């Protein structure tokens, strides 16, 4: 991408002899809201720390806003980071926490006061300016951490698992808050998460990481509907994932021919439970488990293809445990995977 604002170029990151991220290439546009999504140990947090300057790359380069910042120390990068634990200074009030970086920039008097108050007000904590972090709830602490980073007007704001420590209600609030901040300031935001729902809901673009590399980059719709690999498919809720061999499904019970021809070049096919058709089709399964989920009912089937997860309208008649039913895996409703395993 030519309009890259933040660019990682063949970035390799290591802790001692352990390589955490290998040859990572990544371009992020100005003003984007990007999610780094992946299971723990995939290198997403390491990548974030390297962007912040808290970890020196073993090799590769980092460019930000037209300058090579690979060797620029963390305190001169203009990169903000909202820590998962918030990392507020416990001995300072909310006001002083937010003022910390501005004071180091040399701001004093009215300039300082104006910016700090505006920052605190923007996250709705004007009433709490005199409190210490220990006297605030988790959600409030996080907003202080957000304000503390945002008053510095960072070129990039990094957020480490911004929603994972919050309860469901606060999560929605914080999600809205982050979207508002991003819209109002246009700051480039990168957040790290292991929760696909969080990434899908918040990000403009999702970067799925696995084993220190990028597995897939795409819009939330792309990632959700068109996973490129069995790993991404599994991660975003395709629970029936099969490898393809010579146009047939590779199953524990042997190769199984499909009713229609599989797309060219596919290494595997994946179906969401919703895509499985129950009641008709070439395959037979035995109901091993069933659970009611409000609008729908989920079934776990034992079949010659291995275990199959299906989800159908709850209004349809229920299949008894142990009963045998026909089912189909329609190729048209599958995601075709470029990589398997």
């Amino acid at each position, binding site marked *: 991408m030519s309009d890259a604002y933040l660019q990682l170029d063949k970035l390799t990151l290591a802790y001692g002899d352990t390589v955490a991220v290998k040859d990572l290439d990544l371009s992020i546009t100005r003003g984007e809201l990007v999610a780094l999504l992946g299971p723990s140990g995939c290198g997403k947090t390491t990548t974030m720390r390297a962007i*912040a300057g*808290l970890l020196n790359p073993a090799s590769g380069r980092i460019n930000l806003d037209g300058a090579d910042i690979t060797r620029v120390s963390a*305190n001169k990068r203009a990169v903000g980071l909202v820590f998962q634990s918030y990392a507020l*200074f*416990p*001995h300072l009030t909310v006001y002083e926490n937010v003022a*910390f*970086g501005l004071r180091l920039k040399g701001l004093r008097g009215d300039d300082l006061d104006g910016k700090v108050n505006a920052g605190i007000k923007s996250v709705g904590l004007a009433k709490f300016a005199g409190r210490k972090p220990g006297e605030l709830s988790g959600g409030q602490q996080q907003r202080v*951490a957000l304000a503390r980073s945002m008053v*510095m007007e960072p070129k990039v704001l990094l957020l480490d698992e911004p929603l994972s420590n919050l309860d469901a209600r606060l999560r929605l609030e914080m999600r809205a808050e982050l979207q508002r901040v991003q819209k109002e300031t246009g700051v480039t935001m990168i957040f790290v998460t292991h929760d696909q729902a969080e990434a899908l809901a918040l990000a403009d673009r999702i970067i799925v990481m696995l084993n220190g590399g990028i597995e897939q980059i795409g819009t939330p719709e792309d990632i959700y509907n068109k996973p490129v690999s069995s790993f991404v498919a599994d991660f975003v809720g395709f629970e029936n994932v099969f490898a393809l061999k010579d146009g047939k499904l590779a199953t524990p019970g042997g190769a199984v021919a499909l009713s229609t021809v599989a797309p060219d070049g596919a290494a595997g096919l994946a179906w969401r439970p919703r895509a499985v058709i129950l009641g008709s089709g070439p395959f037979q399964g035995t109901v091993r488990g069933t659970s009611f989920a409000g609008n729908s009912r989920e079934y776990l089937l034992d079949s010659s293809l291995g275990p199959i997860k299906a989800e159908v309208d709850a209004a349809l008649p229920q299949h008894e445990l142990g009963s045998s039913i026909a089912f189909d895996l329609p190729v048209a409703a599958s995601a075709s995977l470029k990589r398997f395993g």
Partner: protein
Amino acid sequence: MSIRLLSPVVLFLLLVFLIGPFLIIIAASLSAGDTLAFPPQGLSLRWVAKVFTIDSFRDSFAMSMFLAVFGTLAALILGIPAAYALARYRLPGSETVRTVVSLPIIVPGIIVGLALLRYLVVPFGFNITLALFFAHTALVLPYAVRVVSASLGNLRSDIEEAAVLLGSSRLGAFFRVVMPNIRGGILAAFILGFVTSFNQVPVSLFLSGPGVRTLPIDMLGYMETTYDPSIAALSALLAFLSIGIVFLAERFLGFSRYV
């Protein structure tokens, strides 16, 4: 007897054991008689007054204060960075360092004193005051490292990274966000070190010479020649000094949280 009945009795005996000697000293120091005795013969403050007239006590008190204050400060200057390094970094041999730093607590003071005398003072003609200063610094160091370590253990390390990302240098982050948060621990370490150094006998015993003595050694010497209640009066005064310091520390710092 049930535990419920027994425990107050045990508690009472324990208190008698701990506080009893102290009460006896106070009583003896208020005696009007000429020799150290309990129960006291009559009541008077003349021995308490006499303490302040003995020159050697004044000199050795000054020496003890000097050693306790500066020995502890030196131990903190060495101990705070050591505790910080042990708490924040996984270093090769950090367990060994931890053990070595604790040695002065484990090795009997008498051996430390003898070793310093035999290998520093005698062969090199080392200044006695300086030798005492080094000895006290070494003795206090374990407390400094331990108490400050405990304090650092309760402090998240990511606040330093947060400070750095807000524009502070690494060293600046230490002074701006680490030090203010371990201040209580440092003060606790100072008080503990001060009391340890002030009450130190075995090490000082070997290193004291004519003109250079710490107060406890001077008191020991005084008792060998003069058996009057002034020694009890001085002990009581010192005990009140310690109690006062610890009381203030507890009151304003919650000292017991750190020790």
